[in-house]
């Protein structure tokens, strides 16, 4: 139960954050989330169903997102996920942490021999 099904091309653990971010923009169904991620990342991240759905299930269990059945634009019944207030808080926190870490990593990678 603990190990995330790892997206081969995603930094471990970031999938949850990216899903939350995607849903912060607008409620969306499963396929839409994957598509949106791919589009925004300009094709860098491709998420398949085997990674996406377990992630959605976990987020839903943790009360960060909730799903509702609606009709999609293609006239299918689809399960639309939206962010809960907890999910919003979690996204803010994770974004902050991520930015701090990314900046730190970038600083380290930029370091030249003379520094420090």
């Amino acid at each position, binding site marked *: *139960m603990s190990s995330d*099904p790892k997206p081969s091309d995603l930094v471990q653990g970031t999938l949850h954050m990216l899903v939350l971010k995607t849903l912060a923009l607008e409620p969306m*169904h*499963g*396929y*839409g989330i994957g*598509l949106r991620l791919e589009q925004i990342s300009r094709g860098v991240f491709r998420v*398949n*169903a*085997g*990674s996406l*759905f*377990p*992630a959605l*299930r*976990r987020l*839903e*269990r*943790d*009360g960060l997102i909730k799903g509702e059945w609606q009709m*999609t634009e*293609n006239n*299918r*019944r*689809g*399960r639309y996920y939206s962010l809960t207030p907890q999910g919003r808080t979690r996204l803010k926190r994770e974004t902050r942490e991520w930015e701090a870490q990314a900046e730190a990593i970038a600083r380290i990678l930029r370091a030249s021999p003379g520094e420090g």
Partner: protein
Amino acid sequence: MPFFDRFAGGLRALLFRRRAERELDEELRAYLDEAVDREVSVGRSPADARRRVRLEHGPVDAIKDGIRDAGWESFALSMAQDVRYAVRTLVRTPMFTAAALLTLALGIGATTAIYSVVQALLLRSLPYAQPERIVRISEEASSPEAQDPVVRPVGLSKQEMEALRTSSWTLSHVGSYLPASVTMSGSEGAVRMEGMQLSPAVMAMLGVPPLLGRVFEPREENPLDTVIVLSFGTWQRRFGGDPGLVGSTIAINGQSYEVIGVMPQGFYFPTRDAEFWIPLAFPRGARLVITARVRNGVPLEAAREELSALLGRIRTTSRYPAPPPPPPPPGRRLTPEEVMALPPAHIAGRAEDVRITVPAEPPRVRLVPLHDHIIGSTRTALLILMGAGVCVLFIACANVSTLLLARGSTRRREIATRLALGAGRGRIVRQLVTEGLVLAFAGGGAGIALALGGVRLLQYMGAALPPQGFGPSLGLPRVDEIGVDAGVLVFAAGMTCAAGLAAALWPAAQQTRRADGDPLREGSGTTSASPLQLRGRRTGGVLVMLQMCLATVLLVSGALLARGFVSVTSVSPGYDVENVLAFQVILPAGANAGMIRDELLERLSALPGVQAATFTDRLPMSTGGSVVHLRTSPAPVAGPPPPPPPGASMRPEFPTLRTVGPGYLDVLGIAVREGRGFSKEAWQGAPREALISRSLAESGYLGARPVGTLVYLNAPAPLEVVGVIDDLRLFGLDQAPGPQLFVRAGEGLPPAGAGAPPLGTRPGATLPAYMVRFDGDPQRVADGVRGAVRAVHPGATVDRVATLAEIVSNTLVRPRLYTALLAVFAGLAALLAIVGVYGLVAYSVRGRIREIGVRMTFGATPRDIGRLVVGQGMLLACLGIVAGLAGAAAASRYLAAMLYGISPLDAATYGGVAATFALVAFAACWLPASAAARVDPAKTLRGE
């Protein structure tokens, strides 16, 4: 609460499984359809699009598995599957299942039953505020170099108690308590009630508020304060729970006592038998064990040091009466006239203040937490029994392990097939362990049922006769608190889980080892050289050795205890316990106890079948009793007590006092060694007659020829030593007798040493007990006794009738219980270990049937084969037994305190146990070996 959400989500998915599956299907289908639509929209053919989507996302079922695994419910589902499968498998092999269940049930049942006692006695604290800070304070009476560990504490005097109260900074409450047997006269005649007289400080230190009314005020430390607090049970039982009872008066020993309070339900002090509490009458000159509360944060050792120092200071600086003129030289008998002519200083020392400073030996204070005092020696015994129970459980687990492994060999092909088809090793181990747990839980359920019965049996065996007079019961302390409650069930469940895991993990690991050959490639599974079997056997051998080792430890311990018990029961107490009937008499208020006693003795002696009758303040084997300060001069002498004689366990100046009737020696059949017994005629004038025990006579404290000397207790009047009798075991067959003093009660006169009204009238004085020596049927004599008592006083009733033999046997309740339990555990352990040996040898014979066939083909005789098989089994068994002997020798240290008359390293016991056990193990090996020897080589080889 993410945890709760997760749990609820999982639960929902489990409860509405079909709907959840449907939704999952629909959502996935929609996803994949969208993906296909997208591929189509960029211009691929629908077939190609579907193919690409499938390639990208993999099989739908794998995705669904991944999603299901995101919650905990899939784990629970597969667990349920495993459990169902395990139950099916177990039901299919009823013999195996029954054997394993029985084994586990015995192990878990035994451990749980003992744990319920441990929990009630050792783990549950007393129902007082911070009970661990309540201590009992006394002084060490045995000499430091005494070998005998008999410790009978000597209390403190009233002045010392008061000094502690005012000067000690480590104690917050200081008081004392004494038992009180009283007669309450009510509408339906006189009834006996057992209670406690105690200092108000004791009630206050317990910190339990009353249910109704109030408890004692600090100033109510005086027997003249006729106030009484009742227990909840007494209030309900005797007064029908009348809420208006507080404030009314009841008649106790003919005096009216005001009921000031009722304690809440569940409160007791110091035992559940106490029905009431009244203010303490500190007997003049007595030394009582003090009960006190140690202030928070003060270590007990610090309190002990402070008290030792404080007591030493009090004694060296206290005011003593002037030392009297020297007493008449010991060794000469005084006539009554001479006694009367003694100077008044002997009769009542003038209270002149003299300050005496003596470099006294600092008093050695004993500080025992109340709980330890109540539990006493049962702690070691219980821990030993608990250890024995765990050993039995371990042996049981090892047996189940071997059984599982033996059975596993028939399932190797199934497991190998599953492994070959890609099942994870962890998954298969989980399934096998689940099987072990299912077994364990079924066994545990049966074990709890056994424990329920076992607890009943323990309570039955641990119960004792009601104490004569008031004192701690000789049975298990707190026996009525023992029961199977939630805590015990949690323990049982824990033990069950541990047992299941312990039994199943190792066989599971063995069976799923991939590296060990390939069972699929083997023929019909009879290959003897399979490394798996070899390794299994080796570990199995270690297990069997351990089993034999533990069983040997238990057998030796049990045998030692049993032999000790036998030697206790054969100890002579110094008196004849047969054909003596003991009882007590409850008199209504206002009856003249002295006159009734004399008349009753006469009538008793005249009963048919009765040879002699007497009475005593305490029966033999009644716990407690007064230790008095015996002096050779009439007034207290200040200064250090004389050093104890070498080897004496008790200081001779603190003998045990018994006040007895003249017929005491006749009834108990006690021989006089020197001097004479009590005179038969009515007592008149001073000095009163006293007998001393041989150890007191031989201590030299009363001179070389003690007969004829005058001795003094608290009363100024002297006692005359008229004779020396054998040492009597008055506290227990296993307790070496200390110095003893027997004073003849004067007819209608106060008991010696107390300076108080006649026996049985003052609250707190124990009721006298009567004893008659009889012939024939005790029941008939008891009826005669009842008639005699009624004839003496119509309102008097007979209570606590028992033969002396029963009373003496009653002292053995605990040793009997411990011995029986350890014997049962040892027997179980031995049985299981032998079954283990048998099982392992039989298993190995089955695994080596081909090898045996080959050996026989090459000329091995059945005898050779038998020797081979027996030899291997016996090697393990003997190694185990030898290790067990060493273990028993190490463990016997803890057993030593429970042994009587036998060395913990008794060679005969060790040797006998080892030889017998080895013999039985040989039989266990021989059975499968003889089967092996009958193997038909042609058949086994053809069977390939």
